[in-house]
Each structure stands twice: as C-alpha cells, then as structure tokens.
C-alpha cells in the first residue's frame, strides 16, 4: 500500500487533488481511497487529506500515520504544522515552491505549482488552482500514469487548461 498525505489550506484544492489522485489510480486498475480530515469548514485553515493506493481493496479508515509521501501545496502551513511528521525514512516530498528546498534523509522535489497556475490563468476567486497541476507532478513521480492523470482531470473539469497545467508540472518538476 502506498500512503500519501496532502497538506494545504481550506479552499486551495487539497481535497480535490486527493480525489483526482484516487480517480487516476482507479484508472490504473488499482484500489484507492481519499479522505480529507474535516473539522468545521473554515476557509484558509490548514487541512490534511489522505490518499491510499493499493492492489487490493483498502479497509483502513484511520488516519495515515507513516506516509510514504507528503505533498505540500502551501509552504506557509509549515510554520505551524510539522509536515514531515511520521514520514517514512527516505520518503518522498513534493513541495509547491519556486525555490529549492531540501530535507536531509528524504527525497524532495520542488515544483512551482502556483507559478504554473498563474501562467495558465487558472485562477478562481483570486486563488490559483493547485489541484490539477499537482496531479501532473504526482504522475512524474510515477504514483499514477500520465494517461490516467489526464483522464481523471478531464472527468472532473471540462476546461482543458487544467490538463495543460498538469502537463507543465510534469515537465517542470525538479529531478
């Protein structure tokens, strides 16, 4: 089983990213569950979503305690949340960042999802859309196939800019 924890703020699309990831995994012929951890709904508050992908049906409902991967859609949550908490040794990290952050002992990739969203004019109510570009980054990491990623995005969004943004993230993500 592969376990991913996504950190974001309410309204940034972390929950949708989890859903897209699960949908893409389903297209890859795998089993997947995605579950946001909900509190009372508050825009802007730090939230986490969990995605599990496996070859067998998934029976676990409790939170992911030792993820194989952590995705950080908003680095500002790192001020108050330990995003590395429980991350497995050598575990992987995707960070939405234009810079190059490093975390010793982990495999960290930086990708400027916000920049991509702004370039592709993927902005809703003043906020850049991060949930579709990040799917491209996850495909690059081999969590899902690129084809399934596109299929999932197209199922949920009719606007092709979303697919373009995912493509851009796929190409631009640091090695």
């Amino acid at each position, binding site marked *: 089983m592969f376990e991913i924890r996504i950190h974001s703020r309410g309204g940034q699309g972390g929950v949708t990213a*989890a*859903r897209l990831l*699960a*949908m893409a995994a*389903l297209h890859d012929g795998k*089993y*997947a*569950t*995605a*579950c*946001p*951890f*909900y509190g*009372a709904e508050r825009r802007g508050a730090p939230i986490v979503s969990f995605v599990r992908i496996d070859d067998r049906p*998934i*029976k*676990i*409902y*409790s*939170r992911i*305690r030792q993820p194989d991967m952590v995705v950080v859609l908003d680095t500002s949550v790192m001020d108050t949340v330990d995003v590395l908490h429980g991350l497995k040794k050598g575990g992987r990290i995707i960070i939405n960042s234009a810079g190059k952050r490093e975390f010793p002992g982990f495999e960290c990739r930086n990708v400027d999802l916000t920049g991509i969203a702004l370039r592709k004019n993927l902005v809703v109510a003043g906020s850049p859309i991060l949930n579709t570009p990040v799917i491209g980054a996850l495909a690059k990491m081999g969590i899902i196939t690129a084809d399934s990623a596109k299929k999932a995005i197209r199922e949920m969004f009719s606007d092709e800019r979303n697919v373009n943004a995912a493509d851009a993230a796929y190409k631009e993500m640091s090695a």
Partner: protein
Amino acid sequence: MKKIATGNKAVAEAVKQATPGVVAAYPITPQTEIVEQIAEFVSGGLMPTRYIAVESEHSAMAACIGASITGVRTFTATSSHGLLYMHEMTNWAAGARLPIVMANVNRSLGPGWNIWAEHTDALQERDTGWLQIYVSTVQETYDAILMAFRIAEHNDVLLPVMVNLDGFLLSHIMQPVDTVELGDFIPAIYLPHAIDPKHPAGYGPLTGPDQHFKFRWEIERSMRDSVKVIEQTEKEFAERFGRKYGFTEDYRCDDADVIVIALGTLGKEAEVAVDILRNEGVKAGSMRIRWLRPFPKLELKGKDVVVIDRDYSFGFGGIVANEIKAKTGISLYSVIAGIGGQEVTYDDIAGFVRTRRMGEEFWFGVNTHV
C-alpha cells in the same frame, strides 16, 4: 460503472435510481452533501421527485409520513441531533407502517459540539420499529440504499429502514463505487393502506387498551418476517449484481478463537487487525454486524468475543456489547472506543484483542478497566 464517490454521493446516486416521489429533508453536518446532491438532481430534472426543503427534521419526517401514506416512495437523510429531533416522528413512521427509507450519517451528540462519528444517535432509535443497517464502505452504502427501498416496501415488511454510515469516516471518504443498471430490482411501490378519498378511513385514531397492543404485535411480527425478506433481497442482489451480503460480515471466523465485533467502518478496519493478529499466531476473526434490527442470530459459543462500541448507555454499558450478551448469554470483553470520532486504528484494535480481559469493560483513551 466504476467511479470514485463519497459515501454521501453514493447515497444520493442510489436514491436517484430508486426515484422516490417525495424527498423531504433538512441539512445537518455531515449529512448535508446528500440532500444538496438530491436537490441538484431534482432541480436539474434528473429525478422526477418533489423535494420539500422543510424547516426542521421533525417536519422532514412528518412530511415523509404525509407523502408516504398517499402511496409514493419517500426518502430523507439526517444525522445526530437531527435524528433525535425527529424521534417522535420516527416512532410514528414505524407505527403507521410506512416504508420510508432514511440515510443516517452517524454523528455524536452534544454538548460539546462534535460533528464526528459515533453510533449513539442511531442506537437511541433502536426501539422505534425501524429496520437498521450499518454499512462500512461506499459500495456497501450504495447497495444498501437500493436494497433498503425494496425491503421496506415489501408487503411482508412495510416498516421504515434506516441506513447508517459513519460521519466523515464513510460519509466523506472517496472510494471506488460500481453503480448498477437497476432494471426492475425495486418493484413499483404498492402500499395496501394508502389513503384514498374514495374509501374513507380513520388513520391512527384513538385506540383503546383492548386494541393497541395488537398493532404493536403486528410491528414485531413484520420485524420477524423481515428476516426472510432481507435474505431474499440480498440473495437476489448478489445474483443480479454480484455482490454478496449478510446479516453479519464474517472475516476469518471459521477457526477463530477470538472474534472482534463492531459496527460500521470500525468493523471493516478490524479485518486489518485480524490479519496482523493471525501473523502473530493468534486465531482471530472479525464479525461485523450489519443488520442491528432485526437483530441477527450470532454463533459465538466457545469463542472469546471482543465487542467495540462506538456508543454508550450511561449507567449500563456499551449498547452493542450488551445486546449481544442479552441475546447469546456469553461473557465478553467490552471496549468503548471511537466516541465523538476518537481515532481508533487497526493497531489499537489488535491491542484490544491482545490485552482482552473477559467479562470486563474498557474505555479506550481513559485506560480504565471496569
């Protein structure tokens, strides 16, 4: 068709396919997504249904009652305080022999305000005459709603059915769900006592001490008859759509020395604990109770039984544990865990089994054996 859906969306999808004539509902977290989705289906012309946006849950059930007695299929959804607020009407619905189907998203009761999973809400309804099922996956949620209409409306039953799914844990989780071509799986509704101005009658009038108990016995008789209807319905569902269900879901129970019993998602997560324990050489099994009313026949003699209650009856004990004790006469280990969404993992469940003390009660997180 396979897709990813939340438990709430799966409920709405199944209700859409069952095409009730009237849905009357009031929003409450974490159920709201169900009624939002149904309202969207109705306003988009995808459901030939009257959606009544009532001003309270009491009125939601009252409106379902008023609609149902005309002979149309009815549905509502609620949770927690909403369910308790309609308690008077849930009794009425069963007493009036109306096959209303309701999704209840299990949530704790205040104070303090807590929106997370707990079963005390539905368990406080267990004496109302409603059939109750507790589900554990998005797929099972979808399937259970479809079967609920058929079971409730079967003329040997004519009692309302409550489908229970855990708040957030199941209502908001996204899992694969395989939707079906329903065909004639749910026959057209026929309510033999439907109200008809051509045949005037009094419904639910004053009923004296020489008569009332007869109506109550009729409810009980139908509850007993529902066992066969549930079996038939689940059998035909399996034949048509390939998914098998039963009163309980038994996992590695055949040769088990110790059996874990829980409702809902905890019962599913317990299967992971069972695998861990088996690897340690412990002959464990999981028996997830699905139908709580009518209460299933349980074969537990000679086994150690660990019951996890995500609920409590103050001054008495875990409700499910004590129902099992009353019905089977066995001694068991009663664990109270998951109250108000308290995190309970498969490791925790394996721990309950390893450190079990038969005949005792244990509050997880409080660490007190009673």
